[in-house]
């Protein structure tokens, strides 16, 4: 196989950032972080938004290649469909760094076909949430699960990690699991209906903060006390939810930090400097619960 493309050392670079979508706070925070960092370094950033379409994202990357960028940061929408884009970039001699989601390692290998993946481990996030919940409920809970958008890897991985970990506790059961499409409004509506059909539920696991906040509203309007009758745990750890953890309304949240800018650009520079880059760079995400939320709140994103 041909070598990984080299990156010449220059004072400034023209780099591309191919974002997946901009319809939620997490993505917006990620974009802002990338743009801020590029501005700080004085790099020219070509920013595209694939509007939730993997196919468009490939086209976006191709248009960056056509424009002759030096490097591409890609937040791949999907594991497999982005492969052709990565291969095109490699063929054109352009360095690619993946952010926040990885691609299928059987089809394109980090360190061989693209420089590196920087991000979190979604399965791990699910597992950590599950283990916290087991501890908080002494291994006894009837859980309502609010899934992310059907078909999204963040949703399926967070579910897989959580479900696998729960399976180890005989006292814990997922009594209902439905998609609420990562959104607050749907999170509320779905949770309302679930709580009605399962009045005995004691916990809610939401695949992201927004759904958890929606579910919180549903819990309150069902006349239950969050934190007492129902324990809520979520993934993402934005400031808004950490505040709720501090208030005791949400039990815990597993961080999934979107502020990729500094690390992403630093990695690029290190590569240009000739340093060797590890193919998988996993973020050290924090886990907020009552024990540390107040203290860490100022540093939450």
């Amino acid at each position, binding site marked *: 196989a041909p070598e990984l493309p080299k990156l010449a050392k220059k004072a400034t670079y023209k780099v591309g950032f191919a974002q997946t979508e901009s319809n939620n706070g997490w993505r917006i925070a990620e974009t802002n972080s990338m743009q801020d960092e590029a501005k700080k370094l004085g790099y020219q950033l070509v920013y595209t938004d694939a509007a939730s379409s993997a196919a468009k994202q490939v086209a976006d990357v191709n248009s960056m290649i056509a424009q002759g960028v030096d490097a591409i940061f890609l937040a791949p929408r999907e594991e*497999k469909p982005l492969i052709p884009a990565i291969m095109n970039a490699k063929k054109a001699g352009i360095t690619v760094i993946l952010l926040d989601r990885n691609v299928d390692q059987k089809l394109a290998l980090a360190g061989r076909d693209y420089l590196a993946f920087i991000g979190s481990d979604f399965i791990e996030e699910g597992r950590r949430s599950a283990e916290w919940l087991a501890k908080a409920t002494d291994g006894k809970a009837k859980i309502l699960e609010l899934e992310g958008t059907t078909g999204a890897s963040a949703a399926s991985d967070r579910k897989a990690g959580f479900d696998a970990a729960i399976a180890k506790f005989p006292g814990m059961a997922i009594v209902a699991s439905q998609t609420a499409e990562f959104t607050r409004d749907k999170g509320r509506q779905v949770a309302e209906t679930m709580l009605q059909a399962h009045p005995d539920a004691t916990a809610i696991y939401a695949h992201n903060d927004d759904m958890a906040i929606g579910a919180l509203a549903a819990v309150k309007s069902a006349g239950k006390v969050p934190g007492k009758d129902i324990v809520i745990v979520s993934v993402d750890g934005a400031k808004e939810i950490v505040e709720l953890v501090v208030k005791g309304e949400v039990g815990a949240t597993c961080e999934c930090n979107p502020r990729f800018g500094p690390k992403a650009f630093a990695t690029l520079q290190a590569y240009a400097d000739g340093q060797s880059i590890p193919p998988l760079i996993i973020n050290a995400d924090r886990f907020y619960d009552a024990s540390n939320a107040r203290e860490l709140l100022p540093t939450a994103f």
Partner: protein
Amino acid sequence: MNLLNAPTLAQRERGLLLLGRYGVVLGLGALILFGALRYERFLSPFNVLSFLGYNSMFALVSLGMLFVIATGGIDLSVGAVAALGSVVSALASPSGEAWGLAAGVGTGLAVGLVNGFAVVRLGIAPFIATLATMLGARGVALLAAGNGTVSASYDSGFTDLGQGDVAGFPVPALVALACFAIGWVALERTAFGRTVLAVGGNEEATRLMGLPADGTKWAVYAVSGALAGLAGVVLAAQFGAGQPIEGQGWELFAISAVVVGGTPLNGGNGSVVTTLAGVILLGLIFNILNFENGLGTVSLSAYWQSVIRGAFLLLVVVAQAKLVARGSPERA
């Protein structure tokens, strides 16, 4: 007896009508010229070819949509059908490219026949019938794919359908071009095409004239479904995966392309050539926005892109409406 012959249109009016009809081609030319002058590598072979490869999928669904719209119908299911087609063809792809192709197109055809059944036999308005199959096809796609993407086989030659080229020209673009050529002949030069337009123009009259109005409607939904399925095959082959959640909003892209191509939605008219121009024109907006972002002078947020697209659509249809209104002697 030339008294009975309606007065001939003034030359100017005829010109305006033609401009209304073919203005999209001029607009397309202008946009390409703009891009070529403003952006350094806009016309580089890499950009042109990858543009064509990507937009071939939209071209295919738009062609099907054109036939449906020409009968006065609409097909909202094309995007979901393409997604379903991509999943099914990816699942079938290990057996070889022919199987993958047949599976994807066949699936699309099947959904198209369901649409035809709902519209013709059950008498349900096309908008609602295809809205329902849009949901249904999406659901089946997710079920078949187990809620994730499905790898297409890279070993069976299947992906060549999407990633291969003939003398440097991407296969999907060739496929789309061939379909448009066939579509042109079918619409302009066959009895089927004439019947399609007749049904759109006046369905009851068509029936009374003894033409197979129902059969024709079945056929256009089948064609639209099959082409959407083919777009799904291209999707799976080009990106190496069946994607059950891809294709959202394709139906609106296709409708826009047909309309921008000068075909009115109430049926009875339709032009294959200008529809293709419409597809390219709409596709170019994305490409140009990407290049504009690359210039670094203005960095438009993603949100502006949809505002610009909407404004552009408005501009085109208003311009068309004005030209046609001024050129046409039709009374109110």
